[in-house]
C-alpha cells in the first residue's frame, strides 16, 4: 500500500498540470451532481414537509356563490366518506382578478380569506413568514414579494372592473394556494378589510373546503369525484379546485427544468472528464512504458500498477468531488433564492449527506471503471520488451500526408500528420465538441425561444395566448360579438374557454373549447392528428392518451353536468398547464354536455392598440356583463420575466461552463501533445522552425477534429434538440417541441466554438516557447 501511494504521489507530482485540470473537471461535475441531487431530492421532500407542517389538504374545492344547501351537502358527503381523514369548511370570497407582478400583471383565481380564520384552520392553514407594522390590509403569498410588492407598500387588486387597494401587511406561505401555479391563489385580508370587501360584493361569498385523505394517492380522482357529485346534485354549483398531485408538480416546474438542465450538464462534464482520464492513462502507459517495464521487472504485479493508477485517480476524484460539493453549498443559497422565487415555498439550506454521498459514489464509480478499463493494457506489458523497445508512438504502417505529394502547405501538412497520429486525442476532442455543440444549440434554443421571443416557450407551457381575454356573461354574447367584430382594432376574436369535464371511468380533464380551432394562434397545441372540427370530435392530451391506451380514431366517453357523450379522438394535444389532463372540444361539441353561462373570448388586437384601454372600454360598454378582462400580454410579461431571468442565468452558466470545459480539455491535450513531441519540436526548432510555426502546427492539429465534430454536432443537435427537449419536458405533458432553431445563432456559435478552440489551443501551446533546441539535444 505504501509503495502504491509513493508511485501515485510521484505520478501526480510529475503531472501537476494534468492533475489540476482533472481536479477542475471533477469539481465542476461534482458541483453540478450535488446541486442537481439537492434540487431534485430535497425540494419535493420540502414540499411534503411543509404540507405536513401546515396539515395541508389533498383536495381543495371552492364552491363560489354557494349557498347553505351546497355546504350542507358537502358536509354530508365528507362525513360519510371513509376515505376522508379530515376536512375543514371555511367561509371565503372568490373572484377572478389581477394584480401587478414583475412589471406585468398576474391573473389568478383569488380565494380571499380572513386572517384569523386562515391562520387557525385545522387543515391547510397559512403561515405568516413576514409581517410589518400595518395592522390593516393584505397578506400576500410569499412568491409575490418583490420591490413593488413589499411590506409597507400597497398592492392594487383588480376584480372585474373594480380595483381595490390594500396596504401590504406581510407575506405568508400556503402550500396548496400559495402561487398562481396552484390554480387557486389565496389572499389573506385583515378582519376589517375582509368585511369591507364582503360589503362591496365584488367577490363571491364562497365556501373553502379542504380535504385530507387517508390515502393521498387517490387525490386526483377524488377531486373530480367530489366535484362531480356536487354538480350532480346542484346543476348550478360553480366550483374551482386543485389537488395535491397537480399542485406539487406545477409548483416545481422551474425546479424540475433547472435540475434537469443541471443533471444533463453534470453527466456531460463527467463524460468529458472520463474521456480525458482514459486518454491520460493510455498516454501515461505509452510514455512510461519503460518505467512500468522496470517496475514489473523489479517485481511489481500488474494488479499493483493498476491499483496505483486507481489510487491516484480515486484520490483526485474524492478530493475534487468533496471540493465540488463544498462549492455547490457556496452557490446553493443563490440558487435556492431563485428557486424560492419560483416555488413560493420557503426552503432552508442545510447539509444533505445523501446527495453528497451519491455524487461522490457516482463520480468514484465512474472514474474507477474507466481507470480500470483504460489501465488493463498494463497487464500486457512484458518487462523485457518494454525496457528494450520503450515508447512506440507510431505504428509505422503508413506515412500519412507525404510531403512530396500533398498540396497542403508545410505547417498544415505537419499539423495533419500530428492529427492523424493522435487518434485518441481526436476522440477526446470530438466527444468534447459534440457535447458542447449540443449545449450551445440548447442555449441558442433557449435564447431564441425564451429570452428574445417568448412566444414559442409560452405557447408550449401555456398553450394559447392572445392580446386580451374577455370573460362575458352568455346573455350578452350576441351584442358583444357584433360590437367586437365591427371593431377595426380587433384582428380576430374567438371563444377559448376552459371548463372541467370527466372521462367516464377515468380522470377529470380540463376541456378547452373553441368555436373554430383554425382561428387559434397556437396551432402546435395539437401535435398529432388534427383539432376537433365537428361536435362529436375531441383532441386529448397525449400523456393521458398514452396512460389510457387511446389512439386517434378511438372513442372516449366524456361526462359533465350529469350528461355523457361519446367523442371520436381526432388528435393528441400537449398543454403543460394541467400536466397532461386536457382535452379540446368544439363549442358545439361541449354544448352537447352543458351550456356556458360565462364565455371567455380571446382577442387579437392590431399593433399599437393599448390593451388595457381596450379592456376598460369593453368593461364599461358591457358593464355588469363582463366578468373579467385580462391583459394577456401583461400577464405573460409578468410570469415570463421570471422564466427569462432563470433561463438567462442558466444560459450564461452553461456558456461559461462550456468555455471552461474547452479550456481544460485543450489544456490537457496540448500538454500531452507537447510532452510527446518535446523531442520532435526540439529537432524542428534546431533545423529552423520558429516558435510561432510550431504553435500554429500544434493548434492546427486539433482543428480537423474540432471543425468536423463541431459542424456534425451542430447539425445533429439542431435535428435532435426539439425531440430531446420534448423528452426532457415529457413529465409535464409535452410530447413534441416545435421551438425555432436559431440557424444564424448556431452558425455563429459554431464559428465561435472553432475560433475559441483555436485561440485556446494557441494559448495553451505557448509553452513551446520554452522548448530550447539546445537543451533537448544536449539532454540526450
Amino acid at each position: 500500500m505504501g509503495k502504491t501511494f509513493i508511485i501515485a504521489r510521484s505520478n501526480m507530482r510529475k503531472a501537476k498540470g494534468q492533475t489540476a485540470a482533472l481536479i477542475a473537471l471533477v469539481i465542476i461535475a461534482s458541483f453540478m451532481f450535488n446541486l442537481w441531487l439537492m434540487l431534485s431530492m430535497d425540494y419535493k421532500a420540502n414540499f411534503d414537509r411543509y404540507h405536513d407542517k401546515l396539515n395541508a389538504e389533498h383536495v381543495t374545492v371552492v364552491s363560489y356563490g354557494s349557498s347553505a344547501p351546497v355546504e350542507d351537502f358537502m358536509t354530508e358527503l365528507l362525513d360519510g366518506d371513509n376515505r376522508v381523514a379530515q376536512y375543514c369548511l371555511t367561509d371565503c370570497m372568490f373572484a377572478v382578478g389581477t394584480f401587478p407582478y414583475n412589471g406585468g400583471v398576474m391573473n389568478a383565481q383569488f380565494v380571499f380569506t380572513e386572517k384569523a380564520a386562515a391562520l387557525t384552520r385545522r387543515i391547510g392553514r397559512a403561515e405568516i413568514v413576514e409581517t410589518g407594522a400595518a395592522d390593516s390590509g393584505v397578506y400576500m403569498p410569499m412568491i409575490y414579494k418583490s420591490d413593488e410588492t413589499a411590506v409597507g407598500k400597497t398592492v392594487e387588486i383588480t376584480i372585474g372592473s373594480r380595483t381595490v387597494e390594500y396596504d401590504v401587511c406581510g407575506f405568508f406561505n400556503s402550500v396548496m394556494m400559495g402561487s398562481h401555479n396552484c390554480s387557486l391563489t389565496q389572499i389573506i385580508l385583515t378582519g376589517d378589510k375582509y368585511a369591507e370587501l364582503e360589503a362591496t360584493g365584488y367577490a363571491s361569498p364562497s365556501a373553502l373546503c379542504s380535504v385530507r385523505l387517508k390515502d393521498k394517492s387517490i387525490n386526483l380522482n377524488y377531486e373530480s369525484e367530489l366535484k362531480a357529485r356536487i354538480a350532480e346534485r346542484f346543476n348550478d354549483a360553480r366550483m374551482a379546485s386543485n389537488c395535491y398531485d397537480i399542485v406539487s408538480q406545477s409548483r416545481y416546474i422551474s425546479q424540475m427544468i433547472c435540475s434537469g438542465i443541471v443533471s444533463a450538464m453534470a453527466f456531460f462534464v463527467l463524460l468529458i472528464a472520463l474521456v480525458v482520464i482514459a486518454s491520460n492513462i493510455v498516454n501515461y502507459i505509452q510514455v512510461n512504458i519503460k518505467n512500468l517495464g522496470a517496475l514489473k521487472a523489479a517485481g511489481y504485479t500488474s494488479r499493483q500498477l493498476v491499483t496505483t493508477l486507481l489510487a491516484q485517480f480515486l484520490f483526485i476524484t474524492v478530493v475534487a468531488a468533496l471540493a465540488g460539493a463544498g462549492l455547490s453549498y457556496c452557490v446553493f443559497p443563490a440558487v435556492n433564492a431563485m428557486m424560492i422565487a419560483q416555488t413560493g415555498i420557503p426552503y432552508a439550506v442545510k447539509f444533505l449527506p445523501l446527495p453528497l454521498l451519491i455524487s461522490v459514489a457516482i463520480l468514484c464509480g465512474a472514474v474507477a471503471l474507466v481507470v480500470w478499463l483504460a489501465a488493463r493494457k498494463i497487464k500486457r506489458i512484458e518487462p523485457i520488451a518494454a525496457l528494450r523497445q520503450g515508447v512506440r508512438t507510431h505504428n509505422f504502417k503508413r506515412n500519412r500526408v507525404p510531403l512530396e505529394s500533398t498540396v497542403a502547405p508545410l505547417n498544415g501538412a505537419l499539423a495533419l500528420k500530428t492529427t492523424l497520429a493522435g487518434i485518441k486525442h481526436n476522440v477526446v476532442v470530438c466527444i468534447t465538441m459534440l457535447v458542447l455543440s449540443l449545449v450551445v444549440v440548447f442555449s441558442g434554443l433557449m435564447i431564441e425561444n425564451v429570452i428574445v421571443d417568448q412566444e414559442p416557450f409560452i405557447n408550449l407551457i401555456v398553450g394559447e395566448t392572445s392580446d386580451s381575454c374577455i370573460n362575458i356573461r352568455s346573455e350578452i354574447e350576441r351584442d358583444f360579438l357584433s360590437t367586437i367584430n365591427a371593431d377595426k382594432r380587433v384582428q380576430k376574436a374567438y371563444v377559448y374557454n376552459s371548463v372541467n369535464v370527466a372521462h367516464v371511468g377515468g380522470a377529470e380533464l380540463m376541456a378547452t373549447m373553441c368555436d373554430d380551432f383554425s382561428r387559434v394562434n397556437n396551432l402546435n397545441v395539437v401535435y398529432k392528428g388534427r383539432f376537433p372540427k365537428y361536435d362529436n370530435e375531441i383532441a386529448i392530451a397525449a400523456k393521458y392518451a398514452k396512460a389510457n391506451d387511446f389512439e386517434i380514431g378511438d372513442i372516449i366517453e366524456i361526462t359533465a353536468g350529469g350528461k355523457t357523450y361519446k367523442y371520436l379522438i381526432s388528435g393528441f394535444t400537449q398543454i403543460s398547464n394541467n400536466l397532461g389532463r386536457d382535452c379540446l372540444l368544439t363549442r358545439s361539441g361541449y354544448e352537447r354536455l352543458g351550456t356556458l353561462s360565462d364565455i371567455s373570448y380571446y382577442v387579437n388586437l392590431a399593433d399599437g392598440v393599448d390593451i388595457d384601454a381596450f379592456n376598460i372600454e369593453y368593461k364599461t360598454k358591457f358593464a355588469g356583463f363582463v366578468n373579467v378582462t385580462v391583459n394577456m400580454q401583461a400577464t405573460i410579461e409578468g410570469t415570463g420575466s421570471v422564466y427569462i431571468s432563470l433561463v438567462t442565468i442558466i444560459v450564461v452558466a452553461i456558456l461559461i461552463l462550456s468555455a471552461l470545459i474547452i479550456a481544460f480539455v485543450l489544456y490537457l491535450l496540448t500538454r500531452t501533445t507537447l510532452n510527446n513531441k518535446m523531442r520532435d519540436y526540439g529537432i524542428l526548432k534546431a533545423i529552423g522552425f520558429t516558435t510561432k510555426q510550431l504553435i500554429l502546427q500544434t493548434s492546427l492539429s486539433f482543428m480537423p477534429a474540432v471543425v468536423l465534430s463541431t459542424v456534425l454536432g451542430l447539425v445533429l443537435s439542431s435535428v435532435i434538440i426539439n425531440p430531446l427537449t420534448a423528452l426532457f419536458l415529457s413529465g409535464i405533458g409535452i410530447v413534441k417541441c416545435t421551438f425555432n432553431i436559431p440557424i444564424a445563432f448556431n452558425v455563429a456559435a459554431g464559428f465561435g466554438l472553432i475560433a475559441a478552440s483555436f485561440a485556446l489551443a494557441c494559448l495553451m501551446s505557448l509553452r513551446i516557447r520554452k522548448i530550447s533546441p539546445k537543451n533537448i539535444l544536449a539532454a540526450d
Partner: protein
Amino acid sequence: MNKVLLKTENLSKSFSNGGELQHVLKNINLELYEGDFTVIMGASGAGKSTLLYALSGMDTPSLGAVTFGDKVISDMSQDGLAVFRREHCGFVFQQIYLIDGMSVTDNVLTAGLLVSKDKKAVVRRARELFAAVGISEQTQKKFPSQLSGGEAQRVGIVRALINSPEILFADEPTGALNSQTGLDVLGVLTEFNSRGQSVVMVTHDIRSARRGNRIVYLKDGVILGECDLGKYEHGDAARHEKLSAFLRDMGW
C-alpha cells in the same frame, strides 16, 4: 585566404551550476572560412559543443558577439535565430535526431520545404543528395527506426544539406556509429567538403579530425592552439603525423 563566413569576438558562455557561475567559454575569438573543414577538438568538458551551439545560433553567448557576414547573430531573437539556422546552417548530430513519426523522405523535405516553396526543386535536390550518400529509393520510404545507424546518419546529412547551407555543423557525427559506418559518414562529409561545402565539426576522435583542413583545439573554454593540415587526401601519412604532433603539443 578564403572569405570569412563566421566570426566570434570575445565570445564567452557561462552557466550557473548550483548558484556557482561556470565559465565554459572564455573570450573566444575565432574566424571560420568558406570552404574549410574546421574541426573543433578538445577533451571532454572543454566547451566544444557549447562553442558549436553558439556558432550555429542554437544558443546565445553570455558575452561577446557572433557575426555571420554582416549579421550579428548573437543579438537575434529566438525566432530570428531559427530563421538564420534554416537559411544558412545545416546540422548533423551525434544522436542523429530524425523525427520518428516521419518517413526518411519527409524528414528531409520538412527541412527543405521550410526554406523553399519550389517543392519540385526540393524533391529533386533531395533525390540527388540521397543518391550521393547512397540511400536507396526503398530506404527513403522507411521510418527512422527501420534504418541502421549509418543509414540514419546519412539521412541526417541529407537533411542538413537539403537547403545548401553555407555552413554544415556536425556535432560528433560518428560518435554513435561503429567504426565502418563512421568511416562511411566521414567519407560523405569529406566528399561534400571537397565540393565546396564549409563544414564545422566537433569531435574528440583523431580519426575523424584527420578529415579537417583546420584543427582548433579547445581547453577549458579557451582556444589553446590551431593547426593547418591542408586539404585531406586519403592515406596521407605526413598529415596524420602533423595532427598527432599538434595534439601532443596541446596535451592530448
